[in-house]
């Protein structure tokens, strides 16, 4: 099969720092420098205090599983040989409901549990393009479903 590139982010001021961080193996989330609120997805203004003084800071990479779906149909050529895969909405632990969309890897379907502890796992989909996926965090077993 011909090489098919994975879908990539658009390069924009608000998105570039996140993806540059991913390529360095660092999970960077936008944070308000006035009130300390983490903001995801990146926005030009803080919805909590309306400050425009925002920058990206590294977070722990730990999260809990909020919800997920197991996708069986490919909606892009790159995913034809990758279905089924687990798309997930997770809560980064730095702040309540700091919701982050990702894909889960290396977890059997029977082991998927809402509330389970996860940790970031950077995977290079092609040279120079890494994405922060998440896997089970065995060193921090889930305290219970949220």
């Amino acid at each position, binding site marked *: 099969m011909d090489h098919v590139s994975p879908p990539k*982010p658009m390069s924009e001021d608000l998105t570039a720092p996140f993806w540059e961080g991913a390529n360095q193996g660092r999970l960077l989330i936008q944070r308000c420098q006035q009130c300390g609120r983490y903001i995801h997805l990146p926005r030009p203004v803080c919805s909590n205090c309306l400050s425009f003084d925002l920058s990206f800071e590294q977070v722990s990479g730990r999260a809990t599983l909020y919800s997920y779906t197991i996708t069986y*149909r490919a909606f892009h050529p790159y995913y034809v040989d990758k279905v089924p895969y687990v798309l997930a909405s997770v809560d980064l632990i730095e702040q309540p409901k700091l919701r982050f969309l990702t894909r889960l890897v290396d977890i059997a379907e029977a082991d998927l549990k809402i509330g389970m502890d996860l940790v970031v796992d950077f995977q290079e989909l092609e040279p120079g393009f890494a994405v922060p996926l998440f896997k089970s965090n065995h060193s921090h077993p889930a305290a219970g479903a949220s």
Partner: protein
Amino acid sequence: MKQRRVAIVGVGYSQVGRNTGLSERHHAAQAAVAALDDAGLKPTDIDGASTWGGDAIDFAHMLGMQPLRWHLNVGISPAFIQPAMHAAMAVADGHADTVMSFRIMMQQPSSAQLSSGKAELGQPSMSDASFMMPYGDFSPTQWAGMLMTRYMHESDATEDHFADFAVAQREYAMKNENALQRSPLSKDDYLSAPFISKPVRLLDCDYPCDSGSAVIFTTEERARDLKKPAVFVETSALAATSDMNFELLPDMAHTAVFQCADNLWASTDITPADVDCAQLYDGFSVITFQWLEALKLCEAGQAGPFVAAGNTRLGGAMPTNTDGGACNVGRRHGANFCIEAVHQLRGESGERQVSDAEVAVWANGFGPFAGAMLLSTR
């Protein structure tokens, strides 16, 4: 400004079907002509137009609805409720006397076309796709999968209840000669249908097609003179509680439909106990389940058992989606629920008629946004 009471007097569809080969204008024209005929109105009686899909000014000009006193093109919104509500408001306010409201929906490329690279989804206009597509997130079916997982986690609904729902909807469709899917369906048929994005199965999804739908709103005074019984807009409500990223909703088990339902009941003396039939958006079946709870047509968390007990069937406590729903009549994006509510309240629903139906609620949207409208003949 004195508010005028508003009525629906005409409804119509285009030639709805899979990849019809007809243009958006063609669907708009067919639906408009059908709605005008239904109402006994002529194009020059129309002085307002609203649409999601295509362009209201273009459609009105094409159809000889000139001049317009009011027009609106709706963008991303909770389906047909948005152009419909604004049409009703325009008439109530006196910005127009008789408004035609459209939803023109063209069938999207299939998973097979997309995965073979022969077609692409419409490009997003804002940058949030940069945080979705790199993870393999492309389709509303995937968002529905996440919402359904979380809903099932927090409520009593099971996959068996969703099978009951699919069967109940098909039973209505078998009584609707305009439904696209009319063959008998069993719970096993539902449970053996392929997963698209688990837990969402093929039969949890609305049925892709080209469709045109149109509805005419006018004043009570004019409605009394027209050929069909008037169906009045009792009230309507909208709610938006997040941005458009369904994947990141703060509460996937209680989306904006709950706030919308509260807004609706707060705006009227009619209560959930007065509702004779419910027409609740089913782009994915989990949406109807949340609306049943949100509108207080069943107990909190109990939509699954409520459906399984037969309450949404004809003769049940709350006949729901009585045209068969968009999973059977095809994706008309909620306009089918407005039109079915009108047919029920006029007593035109034939074999699937709810006896003595006087009050109907129809609802659109899910997730970050929602809208609902209450219709009555009282």
